[in-house]
């Protein structure tokens, strides 16, 4: 009876550890600072856990843009036409 209980307990522990490995994913490649972090619960798992409570997560967005002046463009075109 005790052996059967021990076997069931081992099965549960194995399943839980497999689940944890799957959640953590492949992990960072080669970085000593991040290998220390990998021993902690994964940040992804923590973020996912917090997602329910925190509906809005803020990140920064970068936008590159340029502006052209239509008046300059028009004057260039008219200059080209005059020279022709």
């Amino acid at each position, binding site marked *: 009876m005790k052996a059967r209980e021990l076997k069931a307990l081992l099965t549960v522990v194995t399943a839980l550890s497999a689940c944890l490995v799957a959640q953590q994913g492949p992990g960072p490649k080669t970085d000593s600072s991040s290998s220390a972090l990998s021993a902690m619960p994964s940040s992804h798992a923590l973020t996912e856990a917090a997602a329910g409570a925190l*509906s*809005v*997560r*803020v*990140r*920064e*967005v*970068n*936008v*590159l*843009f*340029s*502006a*052209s*002046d*239509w*008046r300059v463009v028009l004057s260039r075109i008219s200059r080209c036409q005059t020279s022709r």
Partner: protein
Amino acid sequence: MSDNGEEPQSLTYFVRQSDLPLRLGILVDVSGSVESVFPAQQQAAEIFLQQTLRPSDLGSIITFSDQARVAQDFTGKLDALTGAVHRLKAGEASTAIYDAVKTSCKNLSREDDRSFHRRALILITDGEDNSSISKIEDAISTSLQSEVVLFAINTNVVPAFTDSLLKKLTENTGGRVLHARGPSELKMAFRKVNEQLRNQYLLGYKPANWQADHSFHKIHVTTLRFGLRVHCRKGYYANE
């Protein structure tokens, strides 16, 4: 500016970014339909590289017909880039523009390059796609996800035929289409691309409402000064 029609929570920075390193791809159509204009195209591209690339920049040369091929991978060596352009030959059978744009954008945003830089792809073509597996929407989506500004130099003698698709492809990314039917127009087109690349601004902001749900967020940037037209990507995907 607005993000999905809403004002951002905060603007974090606004700087002129003419000196930010550039990762540049020149994507050259080598199909038979561009053969007549090809020598002028090569010459204009070589001049452009000489005038545009700075020591902190990297360039690459990619050709395409039915599929994209890297003629010169990323390098800062001007001789290697101009040499690669000089050796190109046109005359292959088909043209797969959208497939080539997708491949090039992925190449421009390779993960082994983690420095902060701008990415631009210059497509030189007559715009007649006849063999892409991808659709134009796929090419636009990949450009936006890779944060690549796409310019197209349309060498078609009747640009109206192909302009609308090239406009759709480029303007969504913050780029534009330029026409070049002869050597002088080619030089002028490259000069305009150079001007735009060297006169960019970088705006950083925190959106009012952002979740990593992979949804598309529309960006709208405008200026208070009358007469200015803003060129910027039409949006981004909310990925982690």
